């Protein structure tokens, strides 16, 4: 029996040794030093949102990399919800981020803090992500956690004050399949607690406007599968699918296919088509005909689909091998949302909207 135990132990040691030897040949590398400057604009359904965003990343002593980012959203809102129940408004959101990447052996550890401020809404977040390379660098395992806390206010009602807390747990695996193909799977669970509605939005019950009533907890899960492959003619194809479900009884499917291709020596073109479809939340109603504990007429929780097509062109502007690489990028996305149970009360017809998203940005690596 002692000999058997030794043999089992030797077999187990061999197995574990093989796995770890496969992963020990490489070391995780820090993300490259990089700067991005973006101008973004959204226009559709009576809403415009635009602003600048910048990101700078710099490594220190090859072990640590610091990233700072600022993102500004100036919103002018005259959406159907606003024009039918309130007055159009303008506001600005500033989003600040600071992240620290630390490379140790085969792991890249990222600690990030963020803060977002609007006149009536504040968010603070803390994230920890770990990416571990294994199996000779063919497999990367990611695990991450975020906790965010929001302070919710209401313009014109200084007495209103509430909070919301969010926990996000994520895990993912990226696998090299062949010299030309990569695949990944991501899972994320999110739990929310606190004020999860909108202080201004109203629901309709028996045709009358009443303040919406939304549960104070929510728990959701999402799973995404993705594959990207080199097609061999300086071009690549990617496909992805995400399934989402939560305890508000929302179920959603997202499918996306994209194609990228180098054009000549200086251009890279990307194109994609994305289809999103979701089922309504249990307490969503366009016009409720029974009294229920919870009721909402939030379009985001209704039954709808969204077809998006988009394209991007990247231009190699300036390059000094070994010193810097500057690229100019322009992207355009066109959204087409069709609501299956949300009536435009101005016309009596089902609501739909088209929107355009523009991104103009420079990226530099150095």
């Amino acid at each position: 029996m002692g000999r058997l135990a030794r043999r089992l132990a030797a077999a187990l040691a061999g197995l574990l040794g093989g796995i770890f030897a496969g992963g020990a040949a490489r070391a995780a590398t820090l993300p490259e030093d990089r700067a991005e400057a973006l101008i973004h604009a959204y226009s559709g359904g009576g809403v415009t949102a635009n602003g600048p965003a910048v990101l700078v990343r710099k490594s220190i002593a090859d072990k640590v990399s610091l990233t700072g980012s600022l993102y500004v959203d100036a919103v002018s809102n005259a959406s159907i919800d606003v024009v039918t129940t309130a007055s159009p408004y303008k506001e600005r959101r500033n989003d600040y981020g600071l992240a620290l990447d630390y490379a140790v052996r085969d792991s890249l550890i990222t600690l990030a803090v963020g803060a977002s401020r609007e006149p009536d809404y504040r968010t603070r977040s803390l994230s920890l992500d770990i990416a571990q390379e294994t199996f000779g660098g063919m497999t990367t395992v990611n695990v991450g956690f975020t906790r965010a806390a929001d302070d919710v206010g209401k313009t014109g009602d200084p007495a209103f004050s509430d909070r919301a807390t969010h926990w996000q747990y994520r895990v993912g695996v990226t696998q090299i399949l062949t010299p030309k193909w990569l695949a990944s799977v991501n899972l994320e669970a999110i739990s929310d607690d606190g004020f999860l509605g909108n202080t201004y939005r109203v629901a309709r019950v028996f045709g009358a406007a009443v303040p919406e009533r939304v549960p104070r907890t929510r728990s959701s899960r999402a799973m995404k599968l993705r594959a990207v492959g080199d097609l061999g003619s300086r071009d690549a194809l990617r496909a992805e699918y995400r399934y989402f479900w939560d305890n508000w009884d929302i179920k959603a499917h997202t499918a996306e296919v994209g194609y990228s291709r180098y054009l000549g020596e200086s251009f890279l073109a990307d194109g994609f088509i994305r289809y999103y479809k979701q089922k309504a939340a249990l307490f969503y109603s366009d016009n409720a005909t029974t009294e229920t504990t919870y009721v909402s007429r939030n379009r985001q929780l209704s039954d709808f689909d969204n077809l998006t097509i988009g394209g991007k062109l990247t231009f190699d502007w300036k390059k000094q091998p070994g010193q810097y690489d500057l690229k100019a990028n322009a992207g355009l996305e066109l959204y087409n949302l069709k609501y299956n149970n949300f009536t435009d009360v101005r016309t009596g017809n089902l609501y739909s909207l088209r929107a355009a998203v523009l991104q103009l940005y420079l990226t530099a690596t150095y």
Partner: protein
Amino acid sequence: MRRWLMPCLLSAAATLAGCAAPEPWVKPYERERLADPIMKLNRDALAAKHSEHVHDIREAARGATGVQGGGCGCK
């Protein structure tokens, strides 16, 4: 009981002993194409964050995007 336990353990041990972990079948020098920017799942952080934000405030689904971040940060 020992009569069947021993052969089972022996065969399990034999299987494990002959079962080295599979070798990485794509060698580092074969990964040149995978390192091309065209193969990156999220090439530009700010553009990806903005696209995710646009989706987050219009659609109920969220998460598992592979875009790192601290949530939507919006109402």
